[in-house]
C-alpha cells in the first residue's frame, strides 16, 4: 500500500477520546497512507469517528495509540511550527475574521513562514496573491470576509491553506454548508490542487456521490469500525459501499453512485 509517493502515514493508530480516566477508542489499528497528488475522501456515518480521526491527524486531539508520520518522521515529536509547515487545515469552525479582507485572511496562512511579528515581504505577498488566484477568489481580494457567500468563504480558507505551502491539506467537512454548485466547484478545486499541484488532499464528507466521482481514493469507516481503503472502482466492485450504513434497507446503487432504498 505504501510507495515512494506516500507522504503521510499512520502506524497502528488508535483514535478516540478520554472520558474522565477512561479511554474511549473509536477506531484502532489504522495503517493508512496518503500520497502526493491524490485526493482522498473520508466517508462514514455520523458518529463513526470521521471528525475524531481528522482531529487526531491534525494534532488537535491526542492519538490513543500508534504513530502518525510525515515523510517518515513522527509528528508528535515535531514542534508546532514544523507541523504548521506540513499540514494545512480547512475546517468549518466559526471564525471572527469578518472585518479582515480576503487578502489579510489568506495572509494569515503565511504565519508559519514569517518572523516574530508576522511581517510579510514581497515573496510572501506574491505567494498570497497566487494562492488567491489558484483558489479562484482573487476577484474578492479586497472584499471583507463578512461579505462573502459560504462558497467564497470556503475558497478563501482553501487559499489560506495554499498560502501555508504545506504538502498536505486536510479539510474537515469542507462542503458541509454549501449549495450543490459550490460543492462541485470546491471539490473540483481540491481535485485540481491534488493533480496539478501535487498536494496530498484529505477531506471528510457527507456528500457520497460527489466524493465518489471526484476522489482518487476513499477511506470508508464501516459500521464495524474498520477503515477500508482503495480506489472508488475497487470499493464499489467489492461491495464495500454497503458496509457504510447500519440500515439494511439502504443499498448502494453503482449506477447512480448513490444510495437508494
Amino acid at each position, binding site marked *: 500500500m505504501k510507495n515512494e509517493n506516500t507522504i503521510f502515514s499512520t502506524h497502528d493508530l488508535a483514535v478516540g477520546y478520554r472520558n474522565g480516566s477512561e479511554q474511549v477508542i473509536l477506531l484502532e489499528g489504522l495503517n493508512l497512507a496518503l500520497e502526493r497528488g491524490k485526493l482522498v475522501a473520508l466517508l462514514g456515518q455520523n458518529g463513526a469517528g470521521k471528525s475524531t480521526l481528522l482531529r487526531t491527524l*491534525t494534532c488537535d486531539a491526542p492519538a490513543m495509540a500508534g504513530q502518525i508520520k510525515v515523510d517518515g518522521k513522527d509528528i508528535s515529536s515535531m514542534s508546532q511550527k514544523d507541523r504548521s509547515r506540513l499540514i494545512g487545515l480547512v*475546517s468549518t469552525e466559526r471564525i*471572527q475574521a*469578518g*472585518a479582515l479582507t480576503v487578502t489579510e485572511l489568506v495572509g*494569515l*496562512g503565511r*504565519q508559519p513562514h514569517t518572523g516574530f511579528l508576522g511581517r510579510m515581504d514581497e515573496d510572501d505577498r506574491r505567494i498570497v496573491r497566487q494562492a488567491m488566484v489558484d483558489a479562484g477568489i482573487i476577484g474578492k481580494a479586497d472584499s471583507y470576509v463578512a461579505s462573502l457567500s459560504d462558497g467564497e468563504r470556503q475558497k478563501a480558507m482553501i487559499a489560506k491553506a495554499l498560502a501555508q505551502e504545506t504538502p498536505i491539506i486536510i479539510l474537515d467537512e469542507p462542503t458541509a454548508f454549501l449549495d450543490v454548485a459550490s460543492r462541485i466547484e470546491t471539490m473540483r478545486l481540491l481535485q485540481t490542487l491534488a493533480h496539478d499541484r501535487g498536494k496530498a488532499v484529505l477531506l471528510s464528507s457527507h456528500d457520497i456521490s460527489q466524493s465518489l466521482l471526484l476522489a482518487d481514493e476513499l477511506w470508508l469507516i464501516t459500521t464495524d469500525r474498520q477503515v477500508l481503503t482503495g480506489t472508488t472502482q475497487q470499493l464499489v466492485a467489492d461491495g464495500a459501499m454497503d458496509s457504510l450504513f447500519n440500515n439494511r434497507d439502504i443499498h448502494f446503487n453503482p449506477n447512480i453512485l448513490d444510495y437508494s432504498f
Partner: protein
Amino acid sequence: MNHCRYVITVIALTLVLVLLALACLAFGSVDIPVDRIVDILSGKGSGNKAWDIIILQSRIPMIATAALAGAALSISGLLLQTTFNNPLAGPSILGVSSGAGLGVAIVILALGGSLGGLLGENMGSYMAILVGALLGAGAVLVVLIAFSAIVRSNTMLLIIGILVSYLTSSVVQLLNSVATEEGVHNYVAWGFGNFSGVSVAQMPVFAGIIVLALIASALMVKPLNAMLLGSRYARNLGVNVTRSRNVLLLITGVLTAVVTAFCGPIGFIGLAVPHIARLSLGTSNHSRLIPATILAGADIALLCALVSVNNPHGIIPINAITPIIGVPIILYIILNRRRIQYFN
C-alpha cells in the same frame, strides 16, 4: 485604501489627544492664564507658587495618568475580546477590575488609618496595594479561564464575570464592617474613579509598568490575529494557543491591576474603546487595531478627566462619566451586530 484610512485615523486620534491634553492643562478648577501656563512650562515660573504647583504637580500628572490609564484599560479590553472570542468582554464586565478592587480593599482596610492620602505617598504602602490588585485580578482571570473551558457560551461567561463582581463587592462590604472609619473612607473615595491619584513620585512606577505591558501587547500581534480564526486554526498556523492565551491574560491582568490600584475600578472604557477603534478603522487586524486602541483609549480618558475637573460645584467622579460615553457605544454595537463586519 485601507492603509489610507488607518493613517488618517491615527493622525486624527493623535491630534485629538494633543488638543485634549492642552485643554486639560489650560482648564481646571482654578483659572490660570494661558501665558502664565506657558511660563511655568518653559521653566520660568509664573510668580505664583500655587499655580506652579497646580500645573506641575496636579494637571500634568493627571494628564499623563488619564492617557496611560485609558490606553491600558482599552488594550485590556481588546485582548480580552480576542482571547475569549467575545465582543462584549472587558476588564470591568468580566470582573477583573473588581478582583483587583478586592485586592486593593484588603490592603487598604488592613493598613487602615496608616495610609496618608488616597494611596499613600509611602512607597511600601502603594506597592502593597499594587501587589494586592495584581493578585486579585490574577485570581479572577484564573477563574475565568477555568469557566471558559466548561461553559462554551459567550453570554454565560459574561454572566459569570458579573457574578464575580457581585461576590467581590459583598466581600468588600463584609470587610468594611470590621474596618476603621478612615480605611472605609479611603476605599469609598478610591471606588469613585480618579485620575488625580498618581503623584509625581509614583509616576515612574505607574507609567513604567503600563508602557512595558503595552509594548508586550504589541508584540503579540501575530498570535492575536491567528486567534481570530479560532483556536484550531491558530494551532494549525503554528501558534501555541495555551501559552499565547496565558501571556495575553497576564498582560491584561497587569494593565487592569495597575490602573485599578491607582485610579479605582473604572468601567466601560475597556469595553467600548476597542469597538471605537474597529469601527473607525474597519478592520480586526491587530497590527492596526492596537495603535488605534491605545490612542482612542487615551483620548476618551482625557475627555473624562477634562469633564471631571471642570465642574463649578466640585469634582465629578470618573465612574459617573464613563457610562455616559460607553453605554451608547455598546448599545449601538448590540443593535447593529448584523450589519457590523466583525460579527459575521
